[in-house]
């Protein structure tokens, strides 16, 4: 394995017990400090891909390898904060399981609350927070363990449009501050993939295969609105959309004939 690679999916196939083939023969590598975004139609196996990497799902053939013992952390689609833990305890959960003392946990929680604008809510319970605030806690919980690879499964899909943009900006900003190294984000939103990713991988309809691997030539370091206005952005968007549209339409035809 080449030394710059952190994650290496090799000929990964996942068939569920009920016979559904979620993924077949998918190969993908993620380099250190790279942000890879995976887009694809709904149900194409994006969540499955992340779950295999997180160790929650077994590969039926092929598999995934980490270049070295790497710390993983995950941001879940519905946040999946522990309702019985306070914001502070949720944030420091991954530290606690790794043996941090309560004062260390508290200090880390305070630091992350400050960074995420959650100071007022440090002792609140998750259900007392808005969706956006909850997902900030989810992000803080993941980043608090200082992961080598951060996995995000449609992290902002359940948020309203304005909050979603703010959260995307926050994520990019955290990355720019060097608080988040390699990143694998799966989403069905093309603009999100283009805004966050150094690299955008497009999956086909189920079983998910890679049909495109784009490095968008957009120049980051500008506001999102400016990036969206770049011709390179619009061009990449259109290309990916055409690919996915084609997949979805093919899938629909297939389902109709079935």
């Amino acid at each position: 394995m080449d030394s710059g690679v952190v994650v290496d999916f090799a000929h990964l196939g996942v068939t569920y017990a009920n016979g559904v083939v979620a993924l077949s023969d998918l190969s993908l590598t993620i380099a250190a400090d790279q942000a890879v975004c995976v887009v694809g139609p709904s149900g194409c196996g994006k969540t499955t891909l992340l779950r295999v990497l997180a160790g929650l799902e077994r590969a039926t053939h092929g598999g995934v390898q980490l270049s070295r013992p790497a710390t993983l952390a995950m941001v879940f689609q519905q946040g999946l904060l522990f309702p019985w833990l306070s914001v502070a305890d949720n944030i420091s959960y991954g530290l606690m399981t790794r043996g941090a003392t309560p004062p260390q946990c508290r200090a880390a929680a305070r630091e992350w609350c400050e960074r995420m604008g959650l100071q007022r809510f440090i002792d609140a319970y998750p259900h007392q927070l808005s969706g956006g605030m909850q997902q900030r806690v989810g992000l803080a919980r993941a980043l608090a363990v200082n992961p080598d690879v951060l996995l995000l499964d449609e992290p902002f899909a359940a948020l309203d449009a304005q909050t979603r943009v703010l959260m995307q900006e926050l994520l990019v900003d955290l990355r720019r501050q060097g608080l988040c190294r390699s990143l694998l984000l799966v989403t069905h939103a093309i603009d999100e993939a283009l805004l966050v990713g150094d690299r955008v991988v497009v999956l086909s309809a189920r079983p998910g295969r890679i049909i495109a691997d784009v490095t968008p030539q957009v120049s980051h370091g500008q506001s999102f609105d400016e990036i969206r206005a770049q011709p390179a952005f619009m061009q990449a968007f259109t290309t990916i959309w055409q690919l996915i549209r084609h997949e979805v339409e093919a899938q629909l035809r297939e389902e109709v004939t079935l």
Partner: protein
Amino acid sequence: MTQSRWLTWLSPLLLLVLWEVAVQLNLLNRVFIPPPSEVMVALTKALRDGSMQHDVLVSSQRIVLGFVIGAVPGTLLGIWSGLNRTVLALVRPLATMLYPVPKIALLPLVIVVLGIGEVSKVATVAVSVFLMVVIHTIGGVLQIDQRYFEAARVFGANQRTIFRTVALPASLPAIVEGWKLAMGFALTLIVGVEFVGANDGIGYRIWQSYELYAIADMMAAVCVIAGLGWVVTVVLDEVARLLVPWRYTTVKESRMSVVRTWWGAVRPWSYTAAIVPVLLGAAIAAQQVGLNWWLLILALIGSIAIQGGTNLMNDYYDYRKGTDTPAVKGTGGALLRGDLTPTQIFWAGITAFAIGAAIGLYLVSVTGPFIFWLGLCSVAVGYFYTAGPFALAYVGLGEIAVFIFMGPVMVLGSYFLQIPTVAWPAVWVSLPVAFVVAAILHANNLRDIDTDRINNKRTLATIFGRDGARIEYYILVGGTFVSQWVLVALGVAPWPTLVTLAMLPLAWKLMGIAGREVDPAALQPVLRQTAMLHMRFGLLYVLGWVIALWV
């Protein structure tokens, strides 16, 4: 209090009144349906001869014992079954099968196996509690969203951590719900169990009254078991709030539960001056006779209620005058933070006084007029303490009034409840406590010496001046210890009371600060810690008397 709150009380009250009137007008036959007043009389009688307390105690013991014996293994087995498929397959069918069997139907079987004694009663309760708790706990564990387990695993939790941080808290709401149901069940069951083959307990009392056709006694017992049920519900609700706080926090802020708000606002544990003399009087009496716990507990509640009422009323008037700030502890602070409304405080104060008065009258009825005069004097002094033309506190008599009434008088009263004679030794023995309680008040006056002077309040501190006031503090704190040593040397107080020597360093430190500081802020801790000294010294002193019972 809101209007609807009052309305909910109205209908039961109306029913009682109608009932009473209907019997008095002979519309109902009082032999079959005695009026509420007769039930009250029956209840008072049963409380007076102690039979009701005994029955409640016996039934409560059976319930609590049966509950613990059933609920602890039930919870553990339930959790285990929920987490382990094999155990589940073994346990669940059996529990589900036995669950619908009315447990009272098992009683004869249990009696055959275990005999008719205490064991069979507790066992019947325990078995039904066990089944109820097992079923609810299994349900609680099985309904946990599996994704929480996955999230925990992704974040590196091992099996034990997952159990502690996911399985347990996630199933806790259902577990506690099961406990509540099981407790209600236990209450119903114990009555049935005591109908047959018991010699005491609330259920026995109900059945016995039925057989003797003493309907009023029967109804009194029913009222008591209803009250018991209510208490159990309230307690378990509080347990739920403590164990499952995330279920009870509203969106705005983490609001404390009602009981906790009141508990924090009224701060009954801080009523050291109300508690220590009562305990001391009883401890001295216990040297000669067996303790009447019932009277002691009543005296404690009454004493705390009176002081609580006084504090609440003070807070109410302070609030209306606008002297408190939100940072203030106690009800004053709770008022300004909006946790409690002034009306609530006012009525709570009235209620506390009413409880205190009711207990006082009861104690008078049990032990005779001496307690009445004692109480009357105390109330008079309490009233004239800050009110009226001769406000005692403002003519330099505060320390003396407190010294006499929160020392000898209260100790004597508590002693008198146990042994109805006026015993002088009880007065001597109370002196150390009298010194230290006066020291609390004086620490306050010492702190406020300058502002009191400006406001023309005459306290001993303003009269003596700062140096004199310091000497007075030394005398009061020193007197606390010296008077006790004299008592021990004369053989009036037993030597184990010298455990109070442990408080000497604290006293020394306080005298040091009081002799040094002039700034009110620096003297504030002296006030707080003198109250602490009172409590610790007092409790140790009482402890010494208790130890003396055995050595």
